[in-house]
């Protein structure tokens, strides 16, 4: 029996790959499509470093089978910036020093983008609960939350 052929869309571009059934979508993104921005911190859905969107919904790519991507639309950290123009969230993460080691950062950015798509005006508490599945061990979350709130305000057009 041979590997399974999957046709999908990643960051707006058509993509194809071959995988085994047990390969997670994270394995496929990293090893087959060389999109290594999504990270594996736990492999069990507890850390959020592998966050992507699947048909627009935020998920852990370690908890999705590669074969499930057939016909789906996938969004990863590599698709967040618009060409050479950073997404406001990326800019705000840099301005606020919302990263230290940067390993959790791709997952946090993807998760935050999904938050602001669903709720452009979150309270601090809403942001903290939405992001509870994205572990960060470096920052204590303070500057991450500040960056999220500031980016949200800018995206709502509230900055002068």
């Amino acid at each position, binding site marked *: *029996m041979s590997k*399974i052929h999957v046709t999908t869309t990643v960051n707006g571009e058509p993509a194809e790959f071959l995988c*085994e*059934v*047990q390969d*997670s979508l994270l394995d496929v993104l990293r090893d087959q499509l060389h999109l290594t921005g999504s990270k594996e911190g736990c*492999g*069990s*859905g*507890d850390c*959020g470093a592998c*966050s992507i969107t*699947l048909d627009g*919904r*935020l*998920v*852990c790519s*370690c*908890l*999705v*089978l590669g*074969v*499930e991507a*057939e016909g789906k639309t996938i969004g990863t950290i590599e698709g967040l910036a618009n060409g050479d123009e950073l997404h406001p969230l990326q800019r705000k993460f840099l301005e606020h020093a919302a990263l230290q080691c940067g390993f959790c950062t791709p997952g946090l950015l993807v*998760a935050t983008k*999904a*938050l602001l798509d669903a709720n452009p005006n979150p309270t601090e508490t809403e942001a903290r*609960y*939405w*992001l*509870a*599945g*994205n572990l960060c061990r470096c920052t204590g979350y303070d500057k991450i939350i500040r960056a999220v709130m500031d980016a949200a305000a800018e995206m709502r057009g509230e900055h002068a």
Partner: protein
Amino acid sequence: MPRLSYAAPASVPDAVKLLAGAQGLAKVMSGGTDLLVQLRSGRAKPELIVDTKKIPGMMGIRETADGWVIGAATPSAELSEHAGFSAAYPGVVEGTNLIGSTQVQGRASLAGNLCNASPAADSVPAMIAAGAVAVVVGPTGQRSVPVAQIVTAPGRTSLAKGEFIFEFHFPKVSGKQADAYLRFIPRTEMDIAVVGCGVNLTLDAAGVITAASVVLGAVAPTQVAVDATSIVGSKLDDAALAALDTAARAACNPINDKRGTIEFRTKVAGVLARRAAKIAYDRAGAR
């Protein structure tokens, strides 16, 4: 080693045929949030995975004359985003909203949470308290089973080979009826329930409780119903709450494990029963 295969059938009969005809272990997948962890750790070694999400009716929420029908594989995030269902069953949604992270809720389903058969499953106590019924499909056709009768022991269900849950029916909420779910965890998110409690109350016009269902999770091998007769006929005054606390503790048969001790779980079961009942009572009263 036998190779794992995958199928995503487009109809119930196809899925049943695959599951019933499997030689080795066949696993039903909806959200996959438990299954993938089990695959990776080697705890589950299936030969076949049947992905049910492409079967029409497995995904989605609809309101009927009798209440609500929830596709068994509907991700929990869709439940909390659904204004109508969230208004009708805030307690059920509180439960599904606590399954893992935002990311996990993007995939995890009621059927998966139920059939994983963990005593700590967050969506189950409120489903049982609501009187939800599972529509089970399989080689012998279709049957309706109260959610309370699905889980028989940790990791075990009453489903036969080839069977899976197609959808859940929630009765229509009418009059002064409401539910609530609370769980206790050491952090604020991301933990398995140490104790969970779903409460569903119906009041009369004067605010007297006419029907009560209180169900605990994580305090026994399966979810357990609390004898709530002591609060029926009351306005949930202090005496009724104390009686409920005692009844909840009496219903517990927990274990000591890494997540909690027998003493702690028993005490907190009483606390959560009181607190969840109070929330449900206030919600019902406001209707």
